[in-house]
């Protein structure tokens, strides 16, 4: 039988999260191991409503979930979030569905993450352009040089503008703060 209970607190015991909850009435305090999907490690805050479930063996109940009250995900989406002790949102990761263009939100949508390889390509382009210019600079000569005051003609080998562009490094699929 499953019972709605109220979270009091939790402790870690040898890698297990043991939830202390208030089950029935005002003084039926119970402890139960928390069961979660494999690889998921989270800790519910006080006063969350936890689903307490007995197992075949008395005295070995488990908490099988919580009645989350900050659900925003649309069908097909997945959202992880953290809160403060009062349950106020601190940050989140939101994997959007197709309607949300498959975007991944890391705590916000103001900015974009970057694609490293594209950024590297642009950087290397800029670096090559710069190095070419250094080579030109170091080997340049000025024809028509005169002694004393005066002017000379422009160098015979001219530098060119860099073609580096980091626009392709903008990651429109990963938005962030």
């Amino acid at each position: 039988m499953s019972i709605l209970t109220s979270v009091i607190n939790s402790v870690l015991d040898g890698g297990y999260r043991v939830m202390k909850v208030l089950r029935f009435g005002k003084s039926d305090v119970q402890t139960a191991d928390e069961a979660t999907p494999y690889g998921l490690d989270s800790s519910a805050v006080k006063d969350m409503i936890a689903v307490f479930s007995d197992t075949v063996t008395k005295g070995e109940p488990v908490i099988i979930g919580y009645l989350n009250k900050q659900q925003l995900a649309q069908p097909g989406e997945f959202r992880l979030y953290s809160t403060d002790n009062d349950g106020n949102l601190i940050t989140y990761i939101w994997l959007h569905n197709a309607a949300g263009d498959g975007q991944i939100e890391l705590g916000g949508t103001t900015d974009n993450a970057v694609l490293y390889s594209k950024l590297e390509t642009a950087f290397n382009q800029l670096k090559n352009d710069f190095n070419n210019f250094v080579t030109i600079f170091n080997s340049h000569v000025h024809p028509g040089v005169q002694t004393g005051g005066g002017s000379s003609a422009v160098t015979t080998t001219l530098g060119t503008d860099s073609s580096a562009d980091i626009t392709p490094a903008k990651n429109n699929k990963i938005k962030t703060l």
Partner: protein
Amino acid sequence: MELKIGTRKLDLYNNVSVALHYDSVASAFSFDFYFDPNNADHKAMFLPGSYSPVTIDHNGERLITGILLSPKFKSDSVRRGVTISGYSKTGVLEDCEIPTSSYPLQAIGLSLGNIAQRIIKPFGLNLVIDPSVSSNVNSVYKSTTADDKQTVKSYLCELAGQKHVMLSHDEMGNLLLTQAKITQQPIFDFTNGMPNVAMELNFDGQRMHSSITLQKQATKTGKGNAGQSSFSNPYVTSTFRPHVTRQTSGTDVDTALCARNMLSEELKGLTLTIDLDRWTLNNKVIRPNNIITVTNPDLYIYKKTKFFITSVELKGDNNAQVATLTCTLPEVYSSTTPKNIFL
């Protein structure tokens, strides 16, 4: 027999019945009484809902310290009086769930003694621990919990079973944690043909199984090796009747004990009843938790066999006093390997 309600001794009673139980938290009684509606004492004693204290003695031996539970008044053209019934003070534990004042229901690191004391305290009951089980009674459970809808008796029985302790009561109305006295000397030797003795043996074949296997769910630190234990029933060897069930309380360590307890439950299907024309043997009231021996080929008991008295019903009226003894195999209350008494 001497009956008292409060401090008032009753004289005009009839059809008395006292059922003394071992494997129970209470014994029961009933009797008829001439009720005079104009008698102030009678009115005070039999007030419905008074739950008045009752004591029952016989030849100076206390049999029950209990409460008056259910008066049943009758009236027609002939005055009929009242039929009174009740049970031991501890009987309330069969009828009530754990009071919220004894919460929390979960107990971590407490013993059977600790838990029992805490739960029965609001009922004004006392706990008596037989020295033979004090070690088990004082050993702690890692974690245990009661169901909120479970009666006190049910919960304590469940806990006691895990420690091989019997939940019973004494004649003074105390809750008793004890162990069956199956190694004591028999109080009487019954044989067929004894005058004014009738015996009946019943073997409930449907209740019996050739093997009892108990399986437990995985434990969180057990690395997947869930407990499992099996026992064979020596009374079912010629046919295949397996019983497979779940362990619903206790740890992996308790699985074998729980399986053995289930075998004991099956062995209760072999019962012997003895009707006698008296309430006493050797000048003492016949009580449960005693051993007798029986030899009676009429009952397929060809050799002298020990039986354990689990309950005794004493009945009496103006004409006679009779007793009915209900007995089981001593192995029901021990962890020893049972032997087939018929072979």
